């Protein structure tokens, strides 16, 4: 309803709101038409399944975060499903395929690095250059609750007197740099 006075302004605002209304109706019809097509042609996504997965995931995170639940996540392992226990550093012994020496499994990779001449420090040592400038990025250290001594113990075992034994090999310099 137009007010008698302010005739021009009210007509302008009427026109512009009509215009806006038409545009809005047109946009709504665009979306309705597209959704109608998608629904009728069976192209719509299965939102029920997606929402169910999301709900399960949220529920799971709540349950896992609840401290009263049995600590499945980061508790210390006692036995695995086969009833076995394993030391923090794997103690299976086998022969290095490069140098034929007996190596303990948990120390095989650092040994192999030096053995194959690939370790950064091994290379530097051989070229008599200075100490390594960078820390080597660890490729994934077994840092979890049950391995409480990963880095420190290996350093302790660094007995660099050159006699390779089954357990103590001079992998020391090629070891894990503390971050």
């Amino acid at each position: 309803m137009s007010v008698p006075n302010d005739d021009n302004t009210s007509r302008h605002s009427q026109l512009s709101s009509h215009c806006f209304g038409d545009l809005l109706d047109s946009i709504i019809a665009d979306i309705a038409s597209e959704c109608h097509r998608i629904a009728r042609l069976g192209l719509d996504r299965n939102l029920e399944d997606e929402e169910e997965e999301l709900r399960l995931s949220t529920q799971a995170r709540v349950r896992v975060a609840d401290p009263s639940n049995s600590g499945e996540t980061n508790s210390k392992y006692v036995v695995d499903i086969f009833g076995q226990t394993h030391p923090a550093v794997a103690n299976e012994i086998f022969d290095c395929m490069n140098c034929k020496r007996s190596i303990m499994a948990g120390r095989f990779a650092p040994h192999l690095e030096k053995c194959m001449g690939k370790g950064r420090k091994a290379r530097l040592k051989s070229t008599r250059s200075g100490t390594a400038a960078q820390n080597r990025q660890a490729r994934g250290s077994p840092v979890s609750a049950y391995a409480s001594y990963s880095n420190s113990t290996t350093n302790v075992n660094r007995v660099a007197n050159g006699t390779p034994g089954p357990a103590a090999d001079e992998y020391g310099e090629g070891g894990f740099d503390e971050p």
Partner: protein
Amino acid sequence: MTSKHPQHPNHNHHRKQIPLPCPHLSAFRSNHGGANPFRALQSCLRIRPLGRAAIRRDPAEVPRCATCGSSAASRLYACLSCAAVSCFPHSAAHADSGHVIAVDVDRAELFCCACKDQVFDRDFDAAVVLAAASAASSSSLGLRQPENLRKRRRVDYRPWAPDSRERVLVSRGSVPLPGNPPDPADPASCFPRGLRGLNNLGNTCFMNSVLQALLHTPPLRNFFLSDRHNRFLCQQKNGRKSGSGGGDGKNSMLRRICLACDLDAIFSAVFSGDRTPYSPAKFLYSWWQHAANLASYEQQDAHEFFISMLDGIHEKVEQDQRKPRSQGNGECCIAHRVFSGILRSDVTCTVCGFTSTTYDPCVDISLDLEPGQGTARHSTTKSHACNGEIDSVLSSQGCGISTLIGCLDRFTRPEKLGSDQKFFCQHCKVRQESLKQMSIRKLPLVSCFHIKRFEHSPIRKMSRKVDRYLQFPFSLDMAPYLSSSILRSRFGNRIFNFDGDDSETSAESSEFELFAVVTHTGRLDAGHYVTYLRLNNHWYKCDDAWITQVSENIVRAAQGYMMFYVQKILYYKASENLVSS
């Protein structure tokens, strides 16, 4: 606690279907005979580049309702019989004269005035699509097939049982594995075969985690357990080829490294029934020789190892003339047969609509997490959920949780290339601003999704890890990300056979099931990889030498780094026999 599988009563209700025409549309079609009853409309189709199709008798026409003169009505319909234009309220009156089928002039949608509903017709849609394609003068409809794309042959399932002669052969040439049949007194025999811990050889959990996933990748496992790469025969062949007698140690070291042979050895060991943790030392040795030329191998993470390992298996493939070297069609080696898919990349000129299309093979899909999504919002949501209002947290947008589906949506959405990345348009002959859109032309048998959690900034010489949680589903439908779906939506979801749209890409082959999750916990420089495996619908945690059983909640809540999905048709659902998987 395991959730019941989401029920699928109307499992196929959302599958693509073409609705039957209403009787009025059928009558119209038969009355206006011939192959194309909409021929008259084709000359009236006006397409704007990247825009919607419209119907105009001449380009400058402003359609008006014949009854009320309105040109601004939200819907204007042109009668297909007499070309009279009516707005929606007045269209019913026109229908009384017997002209029932009309077309929405601004949306190029057929309308039945008697049913008062939009109707759909294949021939009409085809006309719209072809008009749009020729207006953009592009070959983006994919009539040109990508190279190396061969239709995957389908073989009908036929049951087979050995005859008496074969049974004798089998019993002579094999020995039953321990734990057969499962003995309740022996705990090891009651768990699925192939579950065996892997010793950490010194910071090698990145390798162990990927190996565990691959050991249980169904097509890969089947390949090696079927003796399709026999390491003894392969090494014999290599020994002969290297020419030397192979007597002294040096020559035996020169014998060709074959990662497939080493993998074969691991499969044999892990599926042997022995449950003591296995040390993949030989594999590490071989892989380091293969990966020796990788620039900064110290920075290997599990995903880099995965790529490197697949490459290693591919490289040592026999140079057989029958087998192509390119990995595009996955016929080169088992690694690509299992993991290789084809990605399609479309770059569209925003000015003329011309689209340039390229196809590239890929063995996995690397996804970005959303940039800086609200952690504050996230923690608020979490406290709500703890108070029991789980049901209020439904849509992922609402609660700000990142999802794998959200990442895939972002991966396949049209992306405006920056003004500094103008693409040379072959139609306009100048550099124009463009849109880029990715889609999947061919799905692999096994999809590996890699979440980019490690950000390396070479400028700032530092890297950081993104710890944000990502929700991932146990069942995943990849249909919306196929090239045919993406193309279809680009052309207004018309009924048309778009690139890659054939009966082969049926509902079954786009549905995937999760079977392995590699997670990373901890910092970038001091972290740990663990793999969760899904066998017979039970979840097992593989933490180097430790194999434990976990509830699916642990897996859902874990920080996924690499997720492995296999096509549902290759996935063996839970059976009563816990041991067979």
